[in-house]
């Protein structure tokens, strides 16, 4: 803790103890506690550092008129302080502990009713219970019964916290796990061990009794208690050591059996969780296995399906049960699609009948089918001996279900028509089935279904009633299947034609979401690399599926879309479509100059940020993917210059950051041959800002060693000529932090290369020192000039007056000026700037010092009414 804070703390304690109602905002106590937690985790005794805390606690707990929030804070703080044995002793010596956690005290004061206090009590104890002494205290104070009561508290938060706490006690103090203290002699230690083991046994005993008594609900209203106990058991069973686990299982085994037999729907999932946890820790316990088998035989179809799904989800590896779960999950799909997934069903006729009955109700049908569908990918990955059918049949069944959903199916191929009508047109089932289909690409043997998959998906894209999400998911599925497709000969020309037609139609859709998904799809498709037939040749999937020339006109049209998202997606998609050409260094196509013209127009005129960002990114990917000399270079370089100058002046900070990235690429290109140049990616950079843009693609640089023979000066001149330096300098004085940060980093790199500070002014290479740049007298140029002038005047107060005059002259006149690049880089104070920028913008307001100050100020204004301070807490 720094000195300043230590000085403020007593005052703050006084304020809090006095009256808590004048807190600046309701998070300040939490922040304070967080700070204390941080301090105690860092080591060192809080109690010693700030003795005032103890005084605070004892004062506050006496004063029952205190704000419950402050009381709760005091309880938690006590727990935090008492987390080490030494402090615990100190606190106990002050006889604070008994008072603080005394239930009677709080009940008499009528404060126990406040959930805030109860949670404080639990959390305080929870933090304290880190050593045997604390356990001792806990047991001797008879807190265990109270805690068990709180497990079914009316407040869900409290109930859950109580559960966590119970789990903590049982797990943390398990014998055999070190909970002992250091620095005590052996005898004492043994005594301690014996003591704590007795305490622990007492706790285990009480809890076991409680479990025995309450796990099976006596009345239906007690179901919540059972639910809580089951949750607790699930928490306990997996990490528990053998003695505890066996003890628990011994205690609750009968009750669990009873619950399984009772088959309450609400308890199915938690019960399954408990049994699976028991399974995972105990392996082949006969009883647990029996329980599991009973769970997979309950006669409520909906519950059964959930239980089976839970089993698969937990990755349970026992062939018998997995096979059973798989059958349970496949049965509804079998019934509805008429695909014989389960062979001839003989054993479970009664079960099949009840499932059928459930499926005839619309709501339960949809929810059951969705659960089954969600699990199909997992099912196909189970070992073949567990599966009742080849995985590919499951793909067929999902396809068949998709057909039924869209209402297009022939009566011969389907199952029960009464069930089918429940899913016709159901968007939920469609979405689930499409998701399942997407994931099913990885199931063995799925690839042979590709043609059928394409047919169904194109049908979905065709369907006028498909809603935008369904269309989006259809596109995703199509992409995924395309990416795994190894042989395009499966896809007939008819399918390709249909796909092209439907895409053409969908880019004209009324709903912008659909146009957006379609355009995005075109882009992603171009990004998928496939090899055609047996030929070695590779091309992108959009060429393979839609033919080379059809997508670009559609995307060009989409550049005019009224919806900005669609324009942005179209730009991104165009970049992806053309990347392949750029990489091959193909000659400029006829339409490209037109596209570039349109893109520059968007960058300068579009009112929305998304398309403008996309434009800059388009040029980033063009620049980074172009291979050695190509005919497109001159168009590209021309456009890059405009992009830099327009992007620099954009109002959107993301556009500016992207522009800086483009500038970075140019720098990389120009200087990567020079020794000492750090590429943007590995240069010293601030940790990414939480809201910062992260470039999606890692671009590759194509460096040309031959180009860099002439020396840094000409490269620098070239870069300046392109407008890179203007971008960097204007970025540096930008008011958006991510922009300034990025620019600063790049400028530092440049300085390190051209004129490292380690060298004296005179040592800098004479050639580069000569290169100068023009600063405009307005806007960012003026800002830069101001900085330079200030630096200069600092440095040369006593010396070079002439230079100063020169700077001043420039400033006064409002004209631009010409400065030496090296000199400017050195005088801009980049390192200091970097330090400031690296800190997050709220670092001042988030410091503990400021927190303490806030609390003090708020109380001061509270006592002097009339002067209201509006605290900005966001």
């Amino acid at each position, binding site marked *: 803790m720094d000195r300043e804070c230590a000085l403020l703390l007593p005052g703050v304690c006084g304020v809090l103890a006095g009256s808590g109602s004048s807190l600046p905002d309701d998070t300040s106590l939490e922040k304070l506690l967080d700070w204390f937690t941080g301090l105690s985790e860092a080591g060192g005794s809080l109690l010693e550092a700030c003795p005032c805390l103890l005084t605070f606690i004892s004062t506050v707990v006496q004063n029952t008129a205190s704000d419950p929030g402050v009381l709760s804070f005091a309880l938690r703080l006590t727990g935090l302080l008492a987390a080490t044995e030494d402090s615990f002793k100190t606190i106990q010596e002050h006889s604070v502990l008994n008072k603080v956690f005394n239930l009677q005290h709080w009940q008499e004061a009528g404060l126990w009713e406040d959930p805030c206090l109860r949670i404080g009590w639990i959390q305080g104890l929870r933090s304290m219970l880190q050593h045997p002494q604390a356990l001792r205290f806990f047991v001797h104070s008879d807190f265990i019964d109270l805690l068990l009561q709180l497990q079914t508290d009316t407040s869900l938060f409290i109930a859950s916290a109580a559960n966590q706490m119970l789990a903590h006690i049982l797990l943390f103090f398990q014998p055999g796990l070190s909970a002992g203290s250091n620095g005590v002699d052996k005898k004492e230690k043994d005594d301690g061990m014996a003591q704590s083991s007795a305490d622990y046994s007492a706790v285990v005993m009480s809890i076991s009794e409680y479990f025995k008594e309450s796990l099976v609900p006596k009345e239906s209203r007690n179901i919540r208690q059972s639910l809580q106990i089951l949750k607790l058991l699930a928490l306990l069973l997996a990490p528990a050591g053998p003695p505890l686990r066996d003890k628990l299982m011994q205690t609750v085994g009968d009750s669990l059996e009873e619950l399984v037999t009772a088959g309450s729907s609400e308890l199915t999932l938690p019960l399954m969780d408990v049994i699976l946890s028991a399974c995972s820790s105990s392996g082949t316990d006969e009883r647990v296995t029996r329980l599991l088998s009973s769970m997979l035989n309950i006669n409520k179809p909906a519950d059964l399906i959930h239980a089976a799904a839970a089993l698969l989800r937990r990755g349970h590896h026992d062939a018998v049960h997995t096979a059973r779960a798989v059958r349970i999950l496949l049965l509804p799909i079998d019934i509805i699609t008429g695909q014989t997934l389960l062979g001839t069903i003989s054993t479970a006729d009664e079960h099949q009948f009840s499932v059928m009955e459930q499926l005839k109700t619309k709501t339960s049908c949809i929810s059951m089918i969705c659960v089954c569908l969600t699990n199909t990918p997992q099912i196909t990955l189970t070992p073949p001996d567990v599966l009742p059918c080849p995985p590919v049949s499951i793909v067929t069944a999902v396809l068949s279900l998709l057909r039924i959903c869209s209402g297009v199916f022939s009566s011969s191929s389907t199952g029960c028509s009464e069930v089918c*009508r429940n899913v016709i047109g159901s968007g939920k089932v469609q979405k689930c089935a499409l998701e399942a289909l997407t994931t099913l690409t990885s199931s063995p043997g799925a690839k042979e279904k590709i043609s059928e998959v394409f047919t169904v998906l194109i049908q979905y894209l065709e369907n*006028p009633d498909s809603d935008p999400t369904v269309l989006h998911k259809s596109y995703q599925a199509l992409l995924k299947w395309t990416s795994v497709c190894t042989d395009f000969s499966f896809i007939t020309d008819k399918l390709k034609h249909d796909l092209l037609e439907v895409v053409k139609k969908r880019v*004209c*859709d*009324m709903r912008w979401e659909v146009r957006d998904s379609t355009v995005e799809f075109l882009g992603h498709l171009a990004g998928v690399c496939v090899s055609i037939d047996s030929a070695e040749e590779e091309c992108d999937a959009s060429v393979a599926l839609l033919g080379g020339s059809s997508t670009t006109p559609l995307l060009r*049209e989409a550049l*005019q879309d*009224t919806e900005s998202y669609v324009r942005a997606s179209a730009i991104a998609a165009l970049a992806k479509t053309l990347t392949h050409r750029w990489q091959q260094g193909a000659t400029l196509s006829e339409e490209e100059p037109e596209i570039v013209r349109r893109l520059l127009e968007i960058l300068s005129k579009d009112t929305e940020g998304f398309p403008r960002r996309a434009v800059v990114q388009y040029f980033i990917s063009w620049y980074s993917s172009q291979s050695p000399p190509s005919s497109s270079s001159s168009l590209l370089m021309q456009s890059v210059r405009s992009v830099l100058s327009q992007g620099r002046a954009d109002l959107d900070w993301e556009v500016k950051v992207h522009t800086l990235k483009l500038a970075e690429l140019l720098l990389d290109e120009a200087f990567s041959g020079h020794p000492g140049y750090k590429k943007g990616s590995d240069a010293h950079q601030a940790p990414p800002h939480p809201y910062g843009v992260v470039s999606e693609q890692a671009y590759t640089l194509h460096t040309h060693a031959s180009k860099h023979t002439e020396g840094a000066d000409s490269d620098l001149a070239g870069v300046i000529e392109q407008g890179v330096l203007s971008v960097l300098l204007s970025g540096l004085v930008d008011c958006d932090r991510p922009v300034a940060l990025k620019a600063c980093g790049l400028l530092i790199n440049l300085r390190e290369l051209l004129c490292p500070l380690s060298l004296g002014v005179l040592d800098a290479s004479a050639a580069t020192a000569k290169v100068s740049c023009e600063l405009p007298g307005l806007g960012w140029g003026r800002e830069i000039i101001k900085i330079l002038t200030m630096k200069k005047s600092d440095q040369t107060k006593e010396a070079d007056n002439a230079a100063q005059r020169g700077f001043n002259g420039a400033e006064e006149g409002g004209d631009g000026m010409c400065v030496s690049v090296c000199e400017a880089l050195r005088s801009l104070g980049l390192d200091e700037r970097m330090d400031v920028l690296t800190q997050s913008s709220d670092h001042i307001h988030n410091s503990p010092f400021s927190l303490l100050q806030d609390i003090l100020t708020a109380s001061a204004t509270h006592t002097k009414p009339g002067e209201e301070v509006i605290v900005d807490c966001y």
Partner: protein
Amino acid sequence: MKLYCLSGHPTLPCNVLKFKTTTIMLDCGLDTTSVLNFLPLPLVHSPRLSKLPGWVSKDGSANLEKELKECAGRVFVDSQPEFCLPEKELLDLSTIDVILISNYHCMMALPYITEHTGFTGTVYATEPTLTIGRLFMEELVNFMERVPKAQSATCWKNKEMQRMLPGPLKDAIDVWAWKRSYSMQEVNSALSKVQLVGYSQKVELFGAVQVSPLSSGYSLGSSNWIIQSHHEKVSYVSGSSLLTTHPQPMDQSSLKNSDVLILTGLTQMPTANPDGMLGEFCSNLAMTIRAGGNVLVPCYSSGVIYDLLECLYQFIESANLGTTPFYFISPVANSSLEFSQIFAEWLCHNKQSKVYLPEPPFPHAELIQTNKLKHYPSIHGDFSSEFRQPCVVFTGHPSLRFGDVVHFMELWGKSSINTIIFTEPDFSYLDALAPYQPLAMKCVYCPIDTRLNFHQVSKLLKEVQPLHVVCPEQYTQPPLTQSHRSDLMLELQPPPMPYRRCSVLNLPFRRRYERVYILPELANSLVPSEIKPGVSLATVSAVLHSKDNKHTLQSVPKPPPVAPSKKRKRVLEEPPAVLAPKPLLSGAVPLEAFLVTLQKHGITEVKVEETADGHILHLQAEDTLIQLEEDGTHIVCDNNEPLRTTLRDLVLRFLQKL
């Protein structure tokens, strides 16, 4: 109560309901699908059509070269198109008292009924229905009359001939009853019999029943009808919609508690959702225009076209179609667009409120103002000079057999960059296109039918709970082409009663009560007596007066005081003085008490015998029997009138009198 079904077309119904003493025709739809068997009527001479080969049967035995032409394997009648009328032979149409029209699509057969059957009744319809119905009729007459055909083909209708014909012609029913279009004069005369009604307005028919139209939400002025007497209610549901389009929303609650609900006019496209189709329409339109092609939309001149234009109004901006011209060509285009704007009270709430701003309720006003939408009466005249391509043309008739659409089919059919988009659901698009084959033009089928679908109608019926439902037989089974879609049919408990053309249904409910009014003075004279708590009875003597199906009880006229006249003859002629009716008795005779009473009156020797229904008392001394039974008392006593009277009076003491 009976229902006579004169049309088998589920959306163009024509039924006659006999209810109480009235005969009510429900709708008067004209089945126009028959025109698909005819060759198109081109506006300008079409060398292609005129060069079509005549049809000769394979063995050469039948030669109808003049009447029938062959095109792409199908045979068409080369004559002015004819329509299939409602059945005229099932009952005497001159006995019809009133015709209730539910919407302008369902009145196109009106002139055939009102003008040639001896009809003398009244037609009831709402104002927009009449106005737009008139436009439709005018348009039809205009389409037919401006390209007169000299020839009228009849030979093919010969039974022997028809049997030898191929395809749909062979199976066409009732071809002799098919009729050419009516004339404008007949239209005017028929429509002069229409009396206008407003929603929820109650119209008395001869005092027997009351009819009243309810908003049905399908088109401007479209209505369902309630036909009710005091104790029975029949609802007639025809062409209703729950979607939010331009008309006033459907009034569902008034349909509750019907004894019989006659359900017609459900969607013809149960699998095509109108929203999806609208989207499809727009994207196909945009796709064609972008590729430099023209779009042809065959449509009726009112109805869905308003919604299409509204949708396009929003869409053209977003699809960059701002400069593409939209043409609406119909003899009644102008009237249709303008009328739509003045029927504010018949529009949905949203559009109604625009009128107060004041703004035109439909945005097509703005399209016209900005010259994006232009309308012309025909392709001749101004249109030909202002016509610019690529463009979008809305024009009729949706059957593609007559109207300006025929011209555009000839003009654009050969190029694959053009598209025809079908939006009207009344005709199969493949049949409509048959005489234009081979066709290069792209065809898109986006039928927009906003009428109730099966899902909506089952919900509606669950809510209004009619005792019985009557519907066309088509609704009781899944569509032929999708026999597995059991969701596309009506499933009700009790099952609906299906009807087909020429069915006569006995509607399954009996009239039990009739309302009778009682005059105040007569009511005043009643003396009710309570026979059990809450139930009082009174006897009344009155004269029942029935007129115009109203029944009234009036006081019995007092007999004129008998004049102390000597003319005895007259006295004899007068009706016998009305005697006060004997009081009505109720109650039971308690045995014990009765025996005591008998004893008091000196009758002591009584032998009581128990029977199944009561008791027989044998008064041995008097040799008299008294049978006391639940529903009667008999005193059997021979030739002892004083004793009988005494016994009677004793019995009466125990009974209540009214």
